[in-house]
């Protein structure tokens, strides 16, 4: 960790780098329990991606929430400003026919191939822990053009050598953690960015699989004053931090 305390949180950092990955005019979806993607989409729309098409389980097309709901990301507040509806069924269909650009998905466990587990710890039929289930991931991960995964914990229990159960496999592009970003290259997660307050050593010690650096490895740029100002404006209640 660096010596002086940064003027931004890990949640700010994750939200900012997630937003930077989004492109103008692309079609982007997030599902249940996705507070950081929900905020990152609005940040991206305020900066480089004003024409990004934002889809969610509510059916909203380009919803512009006045205030982000704290406990859920399927709330009717996401419908504000929407001029048409496009249901979850239609979003899956869109992805199935190859027209969904980016899906945000999470994983309770993620392995070095970017496969994820959201189903169980232990045996599937007699689980030690029954997890919520993969939601859309088993269908979306193979069909979306790219998936961006995120997880607000970075430790060897999350980033594992072997998954308890493989819920979903597919087109993972990036995996954002509180400490850095993995990029899936040649079928494996490579360390692509390290955040300014972390280090390759820290990430290596907290990851259950061997760390290999991407050829494009770099230290991520800290959130700019402009990015932080927009975050403060659109998310004054710090909903982006609820998963921490």
């Amino acid at each position, binding site marked *: 960790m660096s010596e002086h305390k940064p003027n931004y949180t890990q949640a700010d950092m994750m939200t900012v780098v997630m937003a930077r990955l989004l492109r103008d005019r692309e079609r982007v979806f997030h*599902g*249940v*329990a996705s*507070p950081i993607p929900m905020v990152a989409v609005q940040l991206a729309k305020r900066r480089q991606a004003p024409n990004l098409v934002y889809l969610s*389980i*509510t*059916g*909203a097309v380009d919803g512009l929430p006045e205030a982000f709901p*704290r*406990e*859920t*990301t*399927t*709330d*009717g*507040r996401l*419908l504000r400003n929407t001029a048409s*509806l496009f*249901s*979850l*069924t239609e979003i*899956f269909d869109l*992805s*199935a*026919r190859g027209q969904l650009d980016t899906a945000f998905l999470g994983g309770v466990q993620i392995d070095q191939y970017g*496969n994820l587990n959201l*189903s169980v710890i232990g045996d*599937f*039929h*007699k*689980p*030690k*822990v*029954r*997890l*919520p*289930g*993969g*939601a*859309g*991931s*088993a*269908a*979306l*991960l*193979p*069909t979306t053009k790219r998936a961006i995964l995120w997880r607000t914990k970075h430790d060897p229990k999350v980033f594992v050598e072997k998954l308890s*159960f*493989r*819920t*979903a*496999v*597919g087109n993972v592009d990036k995996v954002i953690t509180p400490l850095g970003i993995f990029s899936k290259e040649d079928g494996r997660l490579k360390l692509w960015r390290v955040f300014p307050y972390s280090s390759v050593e820290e990430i290596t010690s907290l990851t259950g699989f061997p760390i290999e650096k991407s050829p494009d490895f770099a230290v991520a740029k800290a959130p700019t004053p402009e990015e932080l100002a927009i975050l403060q404006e659109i998310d004054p209640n710090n909903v982006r931090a*609820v*998963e921490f």
Partner: protein
Amino acid sequence: MSKLLSLAAAVGLIKDGDTVALGGNTIQRSPAAFAREMARRKKRNIELVKTAGAYDVDLLALAGCLSAVHAGYIGFENMGLAPNYRKAVEGGQTQAKEHACYTVIAGLRAAAYGIPFMPVAGFLGSELLEVRDFKLVKDPFTGQEVVAVQKLQPDWAVIHVHEADVEGNGRILGSQFEDALMTRAAKGVILTAERIVDKSQFQKHPESVAIPGFLVNAVVELPGGAAPGSCYPLYDANIEAIRSYLAMAPEALDDYLKEVR
């Protein structure tokens, strides 16, 4: 013909062992009051169908009503796991028939379309293929492999709507979720409604009425029927009430069901 029933009479239509699809999504516009009445009536061996569920599924699991749950996600999103559903599955009382939300939709579509199964995109590589009854089949035209989902035909779809008339026409405002599909897939449909309106209201805008009355068996007038979840835009989720439910000891369920109508 009026299909108005009391809540108790409508719940009485559901038999032990039935498969029941619940509308809404997580804590949004779920038939929560209907689920509580199912718990009070001690329904047994119910198989639930839901894309993403929270309070309704968790409460029915706690009440011992569920033999199985077909769903993509059961949890309280940013508030955490579904504690009683978890316990029921981990204890072996309830089987988690995990789906991707899209395979729930595919199974319902097969039922709605009157066909035995539905091919579905994606899913390859998931171990759900091995532990659940999804099948890899050959496309008869190209020979390519595709995942097939068996039809999922609920005995009942229970949908909470904003407005219904006594004949069972139902209007949902805002997010529609997969509710209309459930009404086409199920053998019978029960609506709970925030308010009963005159049919003439719907005749002005039939395009806004997602559920035609001829599919519906029973209508229950039930203002607040989605609480403690939301019924946008009428009311938000009551987060305090949901958190207090989540903190409740399992033994307190009977009192809870007496207190919360």
